[in-house]
């Protein structure tokens, strides 16, 4: 098959999948009851968080153990701004900008200091803990930003939920919140896809593959990594704002290590180096956690831990790449099968590694 035809087919398939996703999002409120719809809204916000790590880790090669730092900052920025402005439109924008700026500052420090990958994990982890400790200790009445009391370990209750853009009087119903959150998820996905298809995305992937070679070709790995990190921070912040909007509540537990661990599990089991993988992983794990939470027999941490260890040992690539490989192998076997006269058995397909 010629490359151009293959590319056209791939593009058509992706557009069809996108159309199906949009149709599903629009159609869901009609068929799903309110409780499930709220649940799905929560999943969609979490999927945005999963995409942020899937992007920076899978395509930028930056393993951040502290993606929740940006998620939490986004949630708090949204809450504080929404309480102060009374309008969720600038709050939503701030929820992307504040974590993005924080990621820029941290990333400048880390990437321009040429701190190695391992230490990057340790530093992001530490920064998340610092934020957790700091926010946790702001319980007193003196800790407030404008009209918003930070509330420390009590969290911030009754965060204003989303309203129509620039129209604080019209608050979105749960159906509207679902459309906004799931729409944001699709938008983020498409945006990241476009970034990856652009020149910038290609250079970022090249740097992930071989930093020295990319640098020798004249690209500055520090700058590209920094930008990837900032985009990831902004996306995670948007997820945080939508999460705060879902529960109308934020508390320091969103900075906690357990959530950081969960994001990494989503990406690992879904498939590193894909965008759909983290979303799939996030959905599977979150549905599983919701199920486990409904009963008392097994502990959720135990199950998550065993799943993560199992995947690292047995299926380190993750679900989506594994399924894709099997499917591609099948397709190739079908395509290569010679056209034989009726009644003659086809020869079994050779191993692809031999054929390629």
């Amino acid at each position: 098959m010629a490359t151009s035809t293959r590319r056209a087919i791939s593009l058509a398939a992706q557009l069809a999948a996108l159309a199906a996703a949009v149709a599903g999002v629009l159609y869901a409120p009609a068929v799903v009851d309110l409780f499930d719809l709220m649940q799905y809204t929560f999943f969609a916000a979490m999927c945005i968080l999963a995409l942020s790590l899937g992007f920076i880790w899978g395509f930028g090669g930056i393993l951040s153990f502290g993606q929740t730092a940006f998620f939490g900052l986004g949630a708090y920025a949204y809450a504080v701004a929404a309480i102060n402005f009374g309008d969720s439109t600038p709050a939503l924008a701030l929820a992307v900008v504040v974590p993005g700026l924080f990621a820029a500052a941290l990333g400048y420090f880390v990437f321009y200091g040429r701190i190695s990958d391992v230490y990057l994990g340790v530093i992001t982890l530490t920064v998340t803990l610092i934020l957790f400790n700091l926010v946790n200790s702001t319980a007193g009445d003196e800790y407030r930003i404008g009209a918003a009391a930070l509330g420390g370990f009590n969290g911030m209750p009754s965060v204003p939920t989303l309203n129509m853009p620039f129209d604080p009087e019209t608050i979105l119903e749960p159906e509207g919140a679902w459309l906004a959150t799931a729409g944001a998820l699709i938008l983020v996905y498409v945006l990241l896809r476009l970034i990856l298809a652009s020149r910038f995305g290609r250079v970022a992937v090249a740097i992930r593959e071989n930093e020295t070679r990319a640098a020798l070709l004249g690209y500055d790995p520090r700058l590209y990594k920094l930008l990837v990190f900032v985009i990831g921070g902004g996306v995670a912040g948007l997820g945080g704002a939508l999460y705060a909007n879902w529960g109308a509540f934020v508390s320091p537990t969103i900075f906690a290590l357990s959530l950081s661990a969960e994001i990494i599990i989503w990406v690992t089991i879904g498939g590193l180096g894909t965008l759909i993988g983290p979303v799939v992983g996030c959905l599977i794990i979150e549905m599983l956690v919701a199920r486990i939470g409904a009963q008392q027999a097994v502990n959720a941490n135990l199950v998550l831990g065993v799943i993560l260890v199992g995947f690292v040992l047995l299926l380190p690539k993750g679900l989506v790449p594994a399924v894709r490989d099997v499917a591609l192998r099948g397709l190739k076997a079908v395509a290569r099968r010679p056209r034989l006269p009726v009644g003659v058995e086809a020869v079994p397909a050779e191993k692809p590694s031999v054929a390629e």
Partner: protein
Amino acid sequence: MELAAILALDVLNGVASLILLCLGLAIIFGMMRIINLAHGEFLMLGAYATVVSTNAGLNIWLAMLVVAPLFVGLVGLVVERCLIRFLYGRLVDTMLATWGLSLAIVGLVTTLYGNTIQGVPTPLGGFSIGEYKSSLYTPFLALMALALLAAVWALLSFTRFGLVARATMQNPNMAAALGVDPKRVYMATFALGAAVTGLAGGLMAPVAGVVPTMGAAYVAKAFITVVGGGAAILSGTAASAALFGFINQTASFLTTPVFGEVALFVTAIVLIRLLPQGISGRFFRGSL
């Protein structure tokens, strides 16, 4: 004056706890380049081993100094055989697998013992400086930290095992050519690191709230200390523990314990930025 003595005691306590917390990690990370994110859970297991065997009627010293390291050392051996040995050379995968392990251990211990705080009484009683009272356990912890440091140093410097282990870490192929089985050395080193961590967990049990999730509070602190220490696992770790412990306790004394923690972490990040090779990359070069 008396206040200064108390502050000095606090600093001593902070430094000693940090050394205890990260010595096992320094052995595993420093010698094998394995990022063991289940380090905090090893500490927690050591603490639980102490609490459970003390409550079962065992002498607390025996529980702390014998049961805890033996038990966690055994756990480390099993973990190395069943998990880590498949992942040598795959740094990120080891991180992920040990993180999974840490979640699983937390889940298991929660299932077995519940989410409540378990405790043992602090032995040794107290003493007073002027009108301030303090626990004798604090100087004891400092002594133990020093003794443990000396013991690990002697083990690595003067014994055949130490020599073989250091040789294997430097050049596994050459060591293998000389008749050493690197796999067994890795296994023993990992178990040793786990046992030291278990001992630390046991020693912390009387002064820490023993809950299944207690490891999370320690793992980042331990890592940042070891990373800040750099390649010389003993002198580097001791130096960074002294620096971070001093800053943590002084800042806690001047403000609140929360800002003490924050000060520790901020110092650590700045230190890694200024000295990416850690303290020992600049100062105690070539020492152990």
